[in-house]
């Protein structure tokens, strides 16, 4: 599977990374180089193999339903590039 120009544009858009037109071709070549190398995995027979999600086989521990966090609007906003009062701010979103 090899990426075409439009696919590079589409994934860059999905990933919200701006790519200038002149960057698309070099990027496409780089990505295809990597994907081509990854193709080696196609020689592995994975029939009947259950996928492994993570490197641990424990079950998940659960926490108690107690309020232990929050209540520090100033701290969660202290790094914000832009704020109005205690709100984060972005350019107006039209639905």
């Amino acid at each position, binding site marked *: 599977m090899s990426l075409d120009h439009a696919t590079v544009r589409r994934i860059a858009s999905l990933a919200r990374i701006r790519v200038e037109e002149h960057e698309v071709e070099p990027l496409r070549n780089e990505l295809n180089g990597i994907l081509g190398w990854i193709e080696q995995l196609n020689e592995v027979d994975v029939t009947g193999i259950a996928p492994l999600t993570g*490197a641990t086989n424990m079950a998940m521990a659960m926490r108690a339903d107690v309020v232990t966090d929050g209540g520090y609007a100033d701290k969660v906003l202290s*790094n914000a590039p832009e704020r109005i009062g205690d709100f984060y701010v972005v350019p*107006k979103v039209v639905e």
Partner: protein
Amino acid sequence: MLTDLTIAQARDGLRAKEFSAVDLTMAHLHAIEKLNTRLNAFITVSHSQALDQARAADAALAAGEARALTGIPLAIKDLFCTAGVRTTAGSKILGPFVPPYESTVTANLLRDGAVLLGKTNLDEFAMGSSNMTSAYGPVENPWKRKQDETAVLVPGGSSGGSAASVAARLAMGATGTDTGGSIRQPASFCGLVGVKPTYGRCSRWGVVAFASSLDHPGPFARTVRDSAILLGSMAGHDPKDSTSAAVPVPDFEAACARGVKGLRIGVPREYHSDGMPAEIDALWQQGLDWLRAAGAEIVDVSLPYTKYGLATYYIVAPAEASSNLARYDGVRFGARENGEDLRDLYERTRAEGFGPEVRRRVLIGTYVLSAGYYDAYYLRAQKIRALILKDFTDAFAHVDALLTPTAPSAAFAQGENMDDPIKMYLNDLFTVPANLAGVPAASVPVGLDANGLPLGLQVIGKPFDEETVFAVSATLEQAAGFTALPAIRAGG
């Protein structure tokens, strides 16, 4: 020189009041002042905070309340969030970020009395094997080629700044993170001990995520024993990390003295690669001989899916990263580029904020998860990951640990291996499988190549059996008697 002491020696010296924690910290801060401009190992030096911590350590020592690391100056990879100290992840996008919280691992170190000197340089978001992708400039490896003192070598990556700082005696030890070899490969390149513990042994809470299922915090030190002391402090169950294991932390330092008598050490035949330099192969044989001489039995084993580890990794890690890095959008923290609308703001912020390697991996990760490609790439990779884990499980039914080279080469020069991303990826060929399987592994410096550059061997153990990894590593360390020093170092 205080900067030449091991952590174990410094611990004894502090308790014997031979010197104070402030003396020890000052010595390291001076070394940083002198050498960091050249090495670029630290992105941020927390001078006054370190001195405050040193003074507190002296007070604790005076009160007879010393803990495992009281007064020991350490460097922290700039991927660990540190309260009130800028944390960049080596990225422009986190340039302005000052976390209001302390990662569990650094909090554990502080609890045990450590002095944190500052935040070390790294490949951007830990994506790299040379420290060349950092937005804060490359790190120079303190080691030099005998024949070519002018070549600037890379310290390895991604924890290159941590490795360089410990090698150059700017810190007594350091934290790193290892997602595909990012502790072990720089340890090998810089003549250090580097340990990637079992997945779940050290909490990931407060560590900027690269690939959640592969990220492992761990220590760098100049001796096996020092790395055991550090891991003992860093490790432990953390209820804030769902993947943290609720298992007790054994006495790693004590395990270093166990020896290898009666242990079965596996030699995975698939780790012999054709292109591998003969001297690495020779060193590997040497390591096996040392272990045999110390009473271990050497057993040939097969890990048939190992060779697919790297390609599997380059699906799984970018996939997770593409999602983990979605939060860097210029809204709540970090750098922002303004745009015409929200989408434009996102796209400009992320194009400006991420370097080329991060962009490349985010795009690969986005692609392998996208509709129509998930099964062919991501799901297949997860199945091969299961086969790789099974390789280890099968091998560990017969042996107690595995011995392999850490990296396929010694440190290379800045600019080398840079033309093709895959060439760089190959650095992690031997280290990646342990990340995919979550098993503990360490790199131990055992010799020099013809250029006088350090080379490490990798010890891989069973899940939660770091003790055996330390026992084997300490045996290798003792047999190797590795005493070579880097050209650039404090007092050197």
